[in-house]
C-alpha cells in the first residue's frame, strides 16, 4: 500500500480511515469496512482524503451518524470474503428488520454512498412493505399526506392533465382562488371605494383577451372588483344580451367539438357590446392542485359559495353540451356570471370572475 494516499498501515493493528459525519463529529472507521462503500473508496483513491483527522472524508448529507452506523454494520459483515451465500442472506434478512422510517433513511444513505447491494436490499424490503397494502395502509406506514381529491382517487387512470376539461377546471379554480384571496385582502385594506370604471368596453375586452401572466392576473383581480360593481348595475339588462351572445356560445360549442383542443378558452368576439355574456362557469374547490395552500385564507361562507359554483361547473362540463346550453341560457340571469375569454388560437386564457359580492 502506498503511504501518501492511504491510511498508515501499522503491521499489528488495522488501518483506519477518518470520516466526518453530518453533525460535524469526526470518527475513525476500519479501512476495509469503509472501502466497501464505493463512494468512500473513490474519495480515498482519487483525492487521498481520509488519512488523518484534518483530512477526514465528509459523508454525504443524507448519511446521518446513526444511519452510518447501520451502514458500517452491513459493510463489516459483507466485506469478509469467506462467507457463504446462505450466511449472507440470513444476515440480510435480520438486518433489515427495522422501522419503516429508518429503512427509508437507510435506503437514501446507501444510495448516496453508492452501495448498490444495500440499496437493492432495502428497496426489496420497502417493496415488500408496500405490496398488497391498501392505499390507506400505505399512507399510514409512510406518513403520506392524503391530499388528492375524491375525483382523482376514484379514477386515477382517467384523470389525465391533458384532458382539456380538466385543464380548464384547473385554471378556473386557480383563478377563482386567487381572486377570492385578493378580495379578502382588498376588503381588509381598503374601505369601500367609490370608483366608476371609466374604461371603454373595448379596452376591457382587449385587457381580458390580452395577457396570461400572474401580474396581470392580480391586476385583473383589482379591476375585476371594479368591473363587478359596474356589472351589477348592468345586470338587470343582461337578459337582453344573452340571446345576442348565443353566437359566442356556438363558437364555444364548436370549439369544444373540434377536438384537439389543448386549452379551452372561449374567445369573446370583439363585436360583443356588453361584457356580461358568457358561460356560467364555476370551479370545483375539490380540484386541488398547486394552489392548495390558498384555501386556508378563505372564510367558510365564501368557500361554500365557491364549492357550489365549482361543483356546478364540473357537473355541467360532464353533461351534454346541448343540455348545458339550455341550462346556461335559462339560468343566466340568476347566476353570477363569469366571463371566460377564449381566442381562436386556443392559447390559454385566464378566467375573469365578474361576481359581485
Amino acid at each position, binding site marked *: 500500500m502506498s503511504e501518501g494516499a492511504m491510511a498508515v498501515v501499522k503491521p499489528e493493528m488495522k488501518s483506519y480511515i477518518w470520516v466526518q459525519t453530518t453533525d460535524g463529529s469526526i470518527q475513525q472507521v476500519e479501512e476495509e469496512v469503509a472501502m466497501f462503500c464505493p463512494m468512500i473508496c473513490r474519495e480515498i483513491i482519487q483525492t487521498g482524503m481520509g488519512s488523518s483527522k484534518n483530512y477526514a472524508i465528509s459523508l454525504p448529507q443524507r448519511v446521518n451518524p446513526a444511519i452510518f452506523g447501520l451502514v458500517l454494520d452491513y459493510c463489516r459483515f459483507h466485506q469478509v470474503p469467506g462467507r457463504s451465500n446462505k450466511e449472507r442472506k440470513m444476515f440480510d434478512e435480520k438486518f433489515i428488520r427495522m422501522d419503516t422510517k429508518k429503512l427509508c*433513511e437507510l435506503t437514501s444513505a446507501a*444510495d448516496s454512498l453508492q452501495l448498490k447491494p444495500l440499496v437493492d436490499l432495502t*428497496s426489496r424490503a420497502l417493496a415488500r412493505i408496500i405490496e398488497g397494502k391498501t392505499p390507506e395502509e400505505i399512507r399510514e406506514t*409512510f406518513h403520506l*399526506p392524503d391530499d*388528492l381529491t375524491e375525483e382523482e382517487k376514484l379514477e*386515477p*387512470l382517467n384523470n389525465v392533465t391533458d384532458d382539456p376539461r380538466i385543464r380548464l377546471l384547473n385554471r378556473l379554480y386557480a383563478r377563482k382562488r386567487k381572486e377570492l384571496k385578493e378580495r379578502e385582502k382588498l376588503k381588509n385594506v381598503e374601505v369601500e371605494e367609490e370608483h366608476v370604471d371609466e374604461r371603454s368596453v373595448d379596452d376591457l375586452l382587449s385587457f381580458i383577451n390580452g395577457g396570461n401572466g400572474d401580474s396581470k392576473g392580480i391586476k385583473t383581480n383589482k379591476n375585476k372588483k371594479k368591473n363587478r360593481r359596474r356589472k351589477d348595475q348592468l345586470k338587470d339588462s343582461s337578459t337582453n344580451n344573452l340571446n345576442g351572445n348565443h353566437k359566442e356560445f356556438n363558437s364555444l360549442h364548436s370549439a369544444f367539438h373540434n377536438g384537439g383542443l389543448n386549452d379551452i378558452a372561449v374567445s369573446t368576439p370583439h363585436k360583443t357590446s356588453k361584457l356580461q355574456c358568457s358561460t356560467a362557469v364555476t370551479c370545483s374547490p375539490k380540484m386541488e392542485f398547486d394552489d392548495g395552500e390558498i*384555501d386556508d385564507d378563505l372564510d367558510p361562507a365564501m368557500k361554500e359559495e365557491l364549492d357550489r359554483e365549482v361543483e356546478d361547473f364540473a357537473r355541467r362540463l360532464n353533461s351534454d353540451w346541448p343540455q348545458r346550453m339550455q341550462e346556461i341560457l335559462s339560468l343566466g340571469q340568476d347566476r353570477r356570471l363569469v366571463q371566460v375569454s377564449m381566442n381562436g388560437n386556443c392559447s390559454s386564457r385566464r378566467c375573469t370572475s365578474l361576481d359581485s359580492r
Partner: protein
Amino acid sequence: MQMGDAAEDFISNLPQSILENILTRLPIGDAVGTCILSSKWRYKWATLTQLVFDENCVPISNDRVPVEKSLVKFITHALFLHQGPIHKFQLSTVHLQSCPDIDQWLLFLSRNDIRELVLELGEGEWFRVPSCLFNCRKLTRLELFRCEFDPPLTFTGFPCLRSLNLHQVLVAPEAIESLISSCPLLESLSLSYFDSLDLNICAPKLKYLYLEGEFKDIHLESTPLLVSMSIAMYMTDDIAEHFEQSSSCNFLKILGGVPHLEKLVGYIYFTKYLSIGDDPGRLPITYNHLKVIELYQVSFEDMKEILVVIRLITNSPNLKELHISGSSNTLAAIEAPDLDFWEKECHADCSFKQLKLVKMTDISGVPHEMELIKFLLSNSPVLEIMSITPCTFVTERKVNMLIELVRFIRASPRAEIIFIQN
C-alpha cells in the same frame, strides 16, 4: 384536505431512481396504484422503464370476456399515461390472443426504445406479429409464445439482440435460419415446438442453446463459443424415415464444433440422433470444459447409442456429473448379444478423474446398463455418489440388480451406491 407535514413523509423525497427501483419490484397493479397515494405520487409510476403485465393486474373473474376487456383497458391506459422510454414490456396471459390492441401497443413500444419484449399469449387464434416489431432496432431480448412471425423481406435482423426465445411460433424455416444469422450478438437461443425443422445454426457468439421439438436435422455450423446445450428431439414417422436415410455423421454435426461446452443435456431421441450416421471413430475434439452430461431416454439395446455415450464421456476429461436415464425394457435389451463390446471399446486406461456424481434413472437392470455402471465404478477414482433408480415396473429383476451391483469393483473408496426405491 390536510397538507401532510413534508418532514414527516419519509419516502416521497427519495431519489426517483430509488423509487423506481422499489416500484419495479411491485406487481404492476400495485405500482400503478401508488398514483392515488398522494399528490406527489401521482405520476411516480409513470416513468417506470419496466412494465410487466399478467392476469393479476385486473380483478379475477371466471368469465373470459370481462377479464380480457379490463386487461386490455388497463394496459392501454398504462401505456397512454406512461412517460419516457420503456425498456422492458412483458405480457403473459392466457386471456388474450390475437387482438388489434396488441398491434397498437407494439407500435407504441417500437417508438419508445423497447429493449426487452416478452409476449406470451393464450391458446386461441395466434397473434400475428406486426411489422413494427421488426423496426425495434434496440431489442436485446425477444420472447414470443404462440405467435405468427413473418419478417418482411427488408428485414436485416436485430443488431443488438442477445436473447431469442420462440415457443410455438409459426415461422418459415428459412426465416428462422436467417433471423439467427442476422443477429450478430445472439448469445442465447431457445426454439421450442417447431414442426419438422431442418435447422442450421450460424451464431458466432452463441453461448446457450435450447431446442425442443420435431427436428429433422440439426447442424451447429458455427457455434464456437457454445457453453450450454439442451436438446429434446421428438419423433414422427417422417423424421424416423429421414433418420434412416441420413449418412453424414450427426455426432460431429452437433458436437463437432463446441470446444468450450460445459453442459450438455439431451432428451428423448437426442442420443439416437447422435448415433446416426458414420461412426466418428476417434474424436477430433476433446471437451475439456464439459462438466455435466445429462442424457435421458438412452436406448440400451442400441449399441450405437451406447457408443455415443462412451465416446462422449471418454472425451470429457473434466467431467464431474453424469446423469443417464434408460428407456429399455424390450426383449432385445435383455438379450444383449454384444457384451464383448465393453472389452473392445473401453480401454483399461481411460479414467474419469473428476467424476464425482453419477445418477442412473429408469434403469431396468438389462445387461448393458449394468455393464455401464460397472465401467463407471471401476474407472472413477474420486467418485462420491452413484445413485440408481430402477424403473417403477421392474420388480423381479431388482434383486438381481442388487446382487450384481454389490460385486462391482469400485475404484473410489468413498463411492456410495444409493439404490432408490419409491
